[in-house]
């Protein structure tokens, strides 16, 4: 039996041995990340560890993204501590407005194919889009990495998911993951790694592949790995990443489960209020009224998401009574969107644009709260009751295309039915 990508990357980092799912390994970690929502705990754990020196601290980035901008004194003070830590130790730091951890790590060239990366965030699976094993950990883990450069891992079993056929215009990686959530349930892949492959993946741009790996966190996945192709290598090179060490799965790799999705025929999907695995095809719920439309987060706040939204809203106005906020995932995306004129289109349509950060996901900054009885359609990744600060409102989850089409009409709308909804094909 051959090996999966997860087995190979973990084995290569555990002294180059062949390892199997279920084994525990102590592996060399290439890069680590702490964000501001977990920095309070992480900095306490580093102090508790009391290491004489932290030889690997320069390979740990500190990212000020959740409290961006800080909504209270405590958060502002956490930021002061994080800046002081980075100054003292020479760690890379991404400050308020620079962007969300999972966007700025790849953009900053901090990871490459074959790497092992950990971060204090469940969506650290995002790095799998670049053929890196990325997984979420806690403060204790990161303090161990700073001191020793190593961490223990249980090698996960892998589910192989073949995406057959390019997605239709107006259908996105988000819709693939939502359909998977409908099939497996939230946490349905708990503890396992996912490997996405097939012509559906090959056809996707990097932005969409990042959604695929990122959103695997809602399936409970430990990692969500893609093989590298020319698009991956070109993207990494353009962002100054180290020389890639692409890792492919063996043809006879031992998978715990195989799933095939006919992506060519997939319709846009939404998660209905309160449960990320209560999934419906958009045509089946079209007409559901919405009052708030949000585009952003580490799942869908990338340039292609904003381009798609602008293509739908160009020269038009949001439906009466709809409030819309667009929050780019990083400063680099913000600048690109501004230079492409996308913010002018969105602002004229009636949307607002916020500085890059995590606010869209969890209302941590207090800018995104919805009113009683309001229905939110969001490109975020979680929708449990009260996630945006009001348990008496509903959050529905869909792609940026679905959010923009719905903001235009005031009801949940299939982007394939509105002008501009086919942006990706036209571009």
């Amino acid at each position, binding site marked *: 039996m051959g090996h999966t990508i997860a087995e190979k990357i973990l084995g290569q980092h555990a002294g180059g041995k062949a390892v199997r799912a279920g084994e525990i390994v102590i592996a060399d970690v290439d890069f680590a990340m702490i964000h501001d929502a977990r920095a309070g705990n992480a900095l306490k754990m580093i102090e508790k560890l009391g290491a004489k020196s932290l030889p690997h601290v320069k390979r740990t980035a500190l990212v000020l993204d959740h409290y961006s901008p800080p909504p209270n004194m405590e958060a502002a003070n956490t930021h002061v501590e994080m800046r002081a830590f980075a100054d003292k130790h020479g760690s890379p730091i991404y400050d308020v407005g620079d962007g969300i951890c999972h966007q700025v790590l790849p953009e900053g060239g901090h990871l490459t194919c074959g790497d092992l990366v950990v971060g204090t965030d*469940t969506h650290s699976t995002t790095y799998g889009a670049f053929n890196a094993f990325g997984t979420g950990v806690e403060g204790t883990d990161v303090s161990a990495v700073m001191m020793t450069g190593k961490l223990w891992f249980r090698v996960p079993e892998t589910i192989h998911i073949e995406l057959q056929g390019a997605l239709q215009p107006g259908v996105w990686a988000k819709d693939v993951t939502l359909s998977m959530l409908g099939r497996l349930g939230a946490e349905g892949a708990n503890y396992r790694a996912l490997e996405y492959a097939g012509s559906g993946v090959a056809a996707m741009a990097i932005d969409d592949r990042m959604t695929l790996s990122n959103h695997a966190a809602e399936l*409970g996945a430990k990692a969500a790995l893609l093989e590298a192709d020319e698009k991956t290598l070109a993207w990494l090179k353009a962002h100054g990443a180290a020389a890639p060490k692409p890792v492919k799965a063996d043809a006879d790799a031992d998978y715990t489960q195989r799933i095939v999705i006919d992506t060519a025929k997939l319709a846009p999907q939404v998660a209905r209020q309160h449960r990320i695995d209560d999934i419906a095809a958009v045509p089946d719920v079209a007409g559901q009224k919405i009052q708030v439309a949000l585009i952003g987060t580490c799942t869908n706040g990338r340039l292609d998401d904003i381009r798609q939204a602008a293509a739908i809203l160009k020269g038009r106005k949001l439906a009466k009574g709809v409030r819309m906020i667009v929050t780019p995932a990083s400063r680099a995306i913000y600048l690109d969107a501004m230079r492409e004129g996308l913010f002018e289109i969105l602002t004229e349509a009636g949307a607002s644009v916020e500085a890059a950060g995590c606010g869209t996901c969890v209302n941590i900054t207090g800018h995104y709260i919805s009113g009683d009885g309001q229905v939110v359609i969001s490109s975020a990744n979680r929708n449990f009751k009260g996630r945006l600060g009001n348990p008496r409102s509903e959050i529905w989850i869909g792609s940026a295309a679905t959010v923009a089409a719905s903001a235009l009409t005031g009801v949940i709308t299939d982007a394939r039915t509105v002008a501009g909804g086919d942006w990706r094909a036209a571009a």
Partner: protein
Amino acid sequence: MNIIKGSARVLGDEVSTDIHCSSKYLPGKDTAYIATVAFDQVAPGFAKAFVKGDIIVAGKNFGINSSREQAVHIMHRLGVAGIIAPSFGRQFYRNAINNGMPVVECDTSGITAGDAVELDLAGGRVSVPSRNIARSVPPLPAVVQALLTAGGLIPFLQKHPDWNLKELEA
């Protein structure tokens, strides 16, 4: 610490430790306060009636969708001696081991509140003698046992800053 004996305290399926045993949704409340109300919403009076040395017997996916290791610090404050559940949330399981909390994946059917439970971590056995329950589970891997014996990853690294691989494999 290879054999742990304690009285069973029962929780249901899919309990989120972020929601029921952390300050994630109670900002500003400290660990000492959360320890007085932990799990009350899913098992009224749980924290108040908890006796140091009790064992949590939970349902499937205990700690689901939960990332905070603070939950384990709170459980230590309560005096939790160990946790058995048919399955655990990924990040919670990792946090438990990193913070010296014994966790055993095992079928928990037939175990009820107050039962005297024995966990044999090295031998891989969960028993409830009064109910004639004796279930085999895979013994915890040596690395995990070493982390638990040390009291968690931080005390482990304080003693073995180079991970002491040879000693562990021996």
